[in-house]
């Protein structure tokens, strides 16, 4: 038997270009990621589920999560895309340092991240004290604090992912665009960003997912006030702490979060096929 490949006639795709043994690893990897989640579904108390996920508190927390998650993602895009570009276009030495600095918030346990944010923006913080004394307003324990905490923990993912893609895409098309008279801004908008789109979308996905999953920093920096700062993860935590050992409603809420996330990620996918090369 000759080795074969299956593919659609006339297309240029070489489907199944993955070495076969690697396919096994890929499937193990995927199973590793989704089996625990399937385990969650398996344990869920389906009778209680509808009540848990339609309770006003759950809906409120979900809505807050989505609002803050989207806002944080937008902030990350606005600040993170330029930062990624800066790193990708710096000399190797400088890029290495910038990359390491960008990655630091990742290393911090979220709790410490929350402390760090409090130290910076809290009433006695470096900047917070100025805001407090000068303008009489405080950031912690507001919805804004949730967004800041989410952006702080999620932005590194966007930056590092996008930077990898920008570096892989290279600068040759940017150079061509410049010789055609395109300003840096035009090059950025019409060449750099579209060509790095796969990486940008991957980064956005990671960033959004990390933002709506954020718990530790939010809990400390923003607090856990229903309707103001109690996002889904905090609601899940509260449910987990509150309901004894059964965790049923915590799991129900987690499933709600997962389902909403899937819908959003699949929507991003659709958008992606439209804009991708």
């Amino acid at each position: 038997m000759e080795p074969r490949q299956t593919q659609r006639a006339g297309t240029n795709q070489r489907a199944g270009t993955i070495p076969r043994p690697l396919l096994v690893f890929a499937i193990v990897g995927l199973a590793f990621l989704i089996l625990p989640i399937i385990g969650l579904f398996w344990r869920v108390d389906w009778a209680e589920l509808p009540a848990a996920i339609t309770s006003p508190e759950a809906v409120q927390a979900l809505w807050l999560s989505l609002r803050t998650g989207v806002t944080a993602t937008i902030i990350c895009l606005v600040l993170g895309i330029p930062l990624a570009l800066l790193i990708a276009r710096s000399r190797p030495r400088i890029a290495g340092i910038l990359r390491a600095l960008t990655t630091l918030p990742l290393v911090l346990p979220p709790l410490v991240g929350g402390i760090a944010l409090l130290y910076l923006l809290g009433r006695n913080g470096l900047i917070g004290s100025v805001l407090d004394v000068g303008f009489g307003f405080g950031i912690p324990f507001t919805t804004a604090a949730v967004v800041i905490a989410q952006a702080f923990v999620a932005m590194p993912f966007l930056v590092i992912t996008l930077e990898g893609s920008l570096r892989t895409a290279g600068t040759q098309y940017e150079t061509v665009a410049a010789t055609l008279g395109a300003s840096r801004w035009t090059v950025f908008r019409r060449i750099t960003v579209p060509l790095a789109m796969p990486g940008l979308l991957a980064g956005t996905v990671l960033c959004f997912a990390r933002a709506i999953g954020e718990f530790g920093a939010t809990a400390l920096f923003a607090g856990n006030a229903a309707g103001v700062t109690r996002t889904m993860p905090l609601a899940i935590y509260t449910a987990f702490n509150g309901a004894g050992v059964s965790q049923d409603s915590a799991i129900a809420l987690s499933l709600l979060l997962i389902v909403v996330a899937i819908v959003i990620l699949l929507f991003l996918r659709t958008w992606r096929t439209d804009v991708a090369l």
Partner: protein
Amino acid sequence: STEDPDLAESTPLATGVSGELTIFAAASLTASFDELAEAFTAENPKVTVHPIVYDGSSTLATQLIEGASADVFAAANESTMADVAGAGELSGDSSIFVTNTLQIAIAPDNPEKITGLTDLTRDGLLVVLCAPEVPCGAASQELLDLDGIPLTPASEEQNVKGVLTKVGAGEADAGLVYKTDVSAAAGAVDGVDIEGAERAINNYTIGVAASAENPEAAQAFVDFVLSDAGQKLLGSFGFGSP
């Protein structure tokens, strides 16, 4: 806030306080404080109690010190409250309002037939404790030391919940937790009383925060917690009176 005069008259304990009330309470108070708040508003209908913020006592204390505004703070121990007071975030004194004693949490029906602390050292038995740094861990260690029981836990959990989850999920065979936690677990775990548990009592403290925007209502709530009605209600969750 309701203006219904009938309701106001029908509550003899009404103190006449009004306004909004924000309460920070230790996570282990979750179910009990929800009921307390309900009873309190029934007596003080002009007071709106915001959903109570539950978290670890340390977390809440940090937030208070860093500018969170709350009216009442209920901590699961004395030292955290002392830190808050030390930072000038407490108005007046704090009071011990309940105590809590340890129990051995075991799987329902006690498959390992555990009857006391000495059983925990049995070979092959997986026991989890709270970390000695956190209040329930400190109490556990104290009790074990007093009895001279050399116990190596499989894990030192960050909080009571960790111990309960592991015992409830069957990962651990036993763990030391508060009595109130066992009763809140509603059948997922059973509790075995410890002889001489009262030697390591944990004191819960409550006080009015310095940043309180509604100190009158805050004080009214603290008073309510310390009142017979409040104590009775807390007792029904397994707490002991100080």
